[in-house]
């Protein structure tokens, strides 16, 4: 197998050196592709390797011998070249042109032989030009013509083939056609191929060995998977880009980041943006929207008005009504009916109860959030198995006054801390009406996926109260759940934050606490929506099957030993590009949120942007990504939701 090498090769035109003391060895039997910006010397290098240019320094070795010291014809039997713009004489036919490739094999007086004929036939077969044999070359399409030229170089039957930009002036389909022919040739004949190519992505796809050239020097060389990186492209082409795996070939795919048309909003002022930093559950406290009549905070009405007639509908005012008729939020008494480990660190509890007939907010569960109440009353260890009494009046069927429908949160907070228990926020992973075929019993059911962030301290499980409860829950355990009243809450319910508006592309990103929300959003997404879902989970064992009809691609990121959020942040950066420096007014610095004092909660409701992002998880991780997306990527805050689901080192309050 002929070997081509360059040793300290310097190539110059008129004393201006284009290629500078460059050394390389072309791997035998492989396809080497040389890339680089215009004027980097890649074509010059190829000409030098093909002995078209005499080196100003160093040398080119063919099988260890200086290529310029060997007879030209002998070299031409080992090394073929297809220059950038070969010229076909007028009127020449395909067969005749290909036949000219036999020139080095013919002597002064040696005529056309059957061996020449056979070589031409082989070249035509390999390039599928047999059918064109008698056509004049001028009449062919660009792609056909290029195949004919390649056939001519093939007829030369050399072990090495050098091609200078064989795809210029061709449309995409023909570019692939030509490169396919070349790689076919490499595979079937073992020909060592060197190509100068300007299309980096095609280069990454077709090369076994990629050489990146800059100012006449090799900047990187090796397998494309190792060589094509964002830093290399930036360095060699001066172009910021993203590199992702080519979904077709698996090779690196370079996505340039230009000055315009980058995924971002028009940097419309944060001032205009719909964003807020406030307690997401403030609205729980605000109570039902249309509050009429005197706001009688002092006028305590017995919540459990035993005398009231459950059938009578007292009109609005000071009267007592059924909870499900006036309160957006209800308390639902449920029991654990199924326990299922769904991952190394996940436990799915199915809760069922008759109350749940009144639970719901429109059809799509999306990221519907609820509250779970954990009180000493219900701690089986403490002897209690009762649901917290403070919420009895909010259960469906209970009677209460309008005033009580709004004041419950404050009332609950006013209880002594030891007895009021704690409230924790979770996501409804699935809601099944009574009679659903997957149900355990006859009542409606809700699935909740708990992240078990636990440690064992001296044989005792420690973690947050919700987690400890979930980890130890047994069938039949009661739990009180606060959530939307199906009769009064529709799809615009405030406990759902996923509001993509008219967006067709979305980004969902979160850690394990957001996994249930992301999975249920994915399940309800219609076809036609595309984008990415990124879910960082503690372990590979936590990866769950997620189904979606949409075109959103789902990526699970097992954290392993990485710090929490690191992989997620990196993946988000990969997907949402930073526009080239100076290309856009970068977004204003988002105002700071002290995530240890406040909940980071910025959501929007009225996006008309084509793109929408939804991010949830540990507050500091979300805060970092918020900063990146708003400030660096210039994203409009009308098209994003940032939600701190929990804060490291702090209990939910």
């Amino acid at each position, binding site marked *: 197998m002929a070997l081509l090498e360059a040793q300290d090769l310097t190539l110059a035109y008129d004393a201006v050196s284009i290629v500078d003391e460059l050394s390389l060895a072309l791997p035998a039997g492989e396809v080497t592709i040389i890339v680089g910006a215009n004027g980097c010397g890649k074509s010059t290098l190829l*000409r030098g390797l*093909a*002995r*078209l240019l005499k080196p100003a320094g160093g040398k080119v070795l063919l099988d260890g011998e200086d290529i310029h010291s060997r007879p*030209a*014809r*002998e*070299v*031409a*039997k080992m*090394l*073929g*070249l*297809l*220059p*950038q*713009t*070969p*010229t*076909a*004489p*007028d*009127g020449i036919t395909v067969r005749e*042109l290909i036949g*000219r*490739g036999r*020139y*080095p094999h*013919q002597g*002064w007086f040696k005529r056309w032989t059957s061996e020449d004929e056979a070589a031409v036939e082989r070249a035509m077969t390999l390039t599928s030009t047999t059918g064109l044999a008698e056509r004049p070359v001028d009449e062919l399409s660009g792609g056909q013509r290029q195949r004919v030229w390649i056939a001519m*170089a093939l007829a*030369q039957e050399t072990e090495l083939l*050098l091609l200078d930009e064989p795809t210029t002036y061709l449309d995409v389909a023909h570019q692939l056609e030509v490169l396919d022919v070349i790689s076919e040739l490499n595979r079937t004949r073992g020909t060592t191929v060197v190509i100068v190519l300007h299309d980096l992505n095609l280069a990454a796809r077709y090369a076994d060995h990629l050489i990146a050239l800059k100012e006449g020097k090799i900047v990187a060389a090796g397998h494309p998977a190792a060589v094509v990186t964002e830093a290399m492209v930036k360095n060699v082409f001066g172009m910021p880009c993203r590199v992702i795996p080519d979904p077709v070939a698996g090779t690196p795919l370079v996505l340039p980041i230009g000055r315009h048309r980058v995924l971002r909003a028009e940097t419309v002022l944060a001032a205009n943006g719909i964003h807020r930093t406030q307690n997401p559950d403030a609205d729980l406290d605000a109570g039902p929207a249309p509050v009429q009549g005197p706001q009688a905070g002092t006028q305590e009405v017995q919540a459990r008005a035993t005398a009231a007639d459950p059938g009578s509908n007292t009109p609005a005012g000071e009267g007592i009504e059924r909870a499900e008729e006036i309160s957006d939020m209800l308390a639902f008494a449920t029991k654990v009916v199924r326990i299922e480990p769904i991952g190394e660190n996940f436990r799915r509890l199915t809760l069922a109860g008759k109350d749940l007939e009144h639970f719901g907010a429109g059809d799509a569960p999306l990221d519907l959030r609820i509250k779970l109440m954990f009180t000493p009353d219900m701690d089986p260890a403490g002897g209690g198995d009762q649901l917290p009494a403070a919420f009895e009046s909010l259960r469906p069927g209970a009677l209460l006054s309008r005033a009580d429908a709004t004041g419950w949160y404050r009332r609950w907070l006013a209880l002594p801390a030891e007895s009021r228990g704690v409230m924790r926020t979770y996501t409804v992973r699935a809601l099944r009406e009574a009679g659903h075929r997957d149900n355990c019993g006859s009542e409606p059911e809700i699935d909740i996926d708990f992240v078990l962030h636990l440690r064992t301290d001296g044989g005792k499980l420690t973690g947050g109260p919700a987690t400890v409860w979930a980890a130890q829950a047994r069938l039949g355990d009661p739990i009180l759940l606060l959530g939307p009243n199906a009769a009064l809450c529709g799809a615009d319910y405030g406990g759902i934050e996923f509001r993509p508006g008219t967006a067709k592309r979305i980004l969902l990103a979160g850690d394990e606490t957001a996994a249930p929300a992301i999975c249920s959003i994915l399940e309800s997404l219609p076809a036609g929506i595309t984008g990415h879902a990124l879910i960082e989970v503690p372990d590979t064992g936590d990866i769950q099957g997620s189904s979606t009809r949409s075109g959103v691609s789902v990526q699970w990121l097992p954290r392993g030993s990485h710090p929490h959020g690191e992989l997620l942040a990196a993946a988000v950066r990969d997907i949402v590009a930073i526009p080239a420096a100076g290309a856009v007014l970068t977004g204003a610095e988002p105002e700071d949120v002290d995530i240890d004092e406040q909940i980071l909660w910025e959501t929007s409701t009225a996006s008309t942007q084509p793109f929408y992002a939804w991010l949830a998880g540990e507050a500091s991780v979300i805060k970092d990504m918020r900063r990146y997306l708003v400030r660096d990527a210039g994203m409009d805050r009308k098209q994003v939701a940032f939600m701190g689901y929990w804060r490291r080192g702090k209990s939910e309050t």
Partner: protein
Amino acid sequence: MARVNLLACAGILAAVLLNLLAGRHPFSVPELLAALAGETVPGVSFMLWEDRLPQAAVGILAGAAFGASGAIFQRMLRNPLASPDVIGVGYGASAAAVAGMLLFGAQGLGLSLIACAGALAVALLIYSIAEAGKNTGPRLILAGIAVAAMLQSVIQYLLTRTDVRTAGDALRWLTGSLSASTWERASLLAAALAILFPLLVPAAAKLRILELGDDTAAGLGLKVRSTRLGLILLGVGLCAVATAVTGPLAFVAFLAGPLALRLCKGRSHLGSAALTGALLVTTATFLAANILPDIQLPVGVVTGALGAPFLIWVLVRTNKEGT
């Protein structure tokens, strides 16, 4: 192509015969046959053997040489404008010959050698100007046209400096004519061409490769520079030996190649160009002798008259194509 070559040969023969039998002072067929058979036919034999036949022989040989020379240049530079008479090689021969004639009274073989030397010198000058960079083809043509213009003024200057009688001889030579043809000159030309014509075979093989572009040719193992130099020498040689004998027959070299290309439907060949050149000259000889009732024109005038419109057409077309 073989058919075209055969047709061209027949055409040449026809033109020669036509000139003998139907031209000015025609011979009758029996007279001609008798004279050809070696009998002495008064008034015919001498005319035939000492004037008409050497004239035809020189016409054929010179035409072929011009035709081949033009085709070599045109194909090598991929440009119909690149024939030696357009790019100044012809003027090199003319200027040298005129200088030799007027300054040293050169004649015969001496004149031929001077003409050759002049053509070669000019060719090498043009080549060295053009070779000094990229785009050899177009640069060669431009350099040639510039040199041609310069040489024309040199010739004009030489002519104005000499006395009218010798200047007249030189002028006649400059228009190109076969009237001074003798067997001696014809054999001189034949001897030179016997050496040069066989070289057309390897030249054609290399041209076929060079036509694909310099880089492709080099990739196929052709030594581009030396090949090009060799082809230039061959082209110049052919042009110069013919010019030395007949003077510059205007535009024969320029016309023969493209004409042959057209006749062969685009598939030309140096041989066809040579035959076409010969056909052009023999036909022009007949026309020159007979087109005007009482004046016999020099052949060069006729070929010039044929070539000029074609040159204009080529220029217009190239201009349209924007190349």
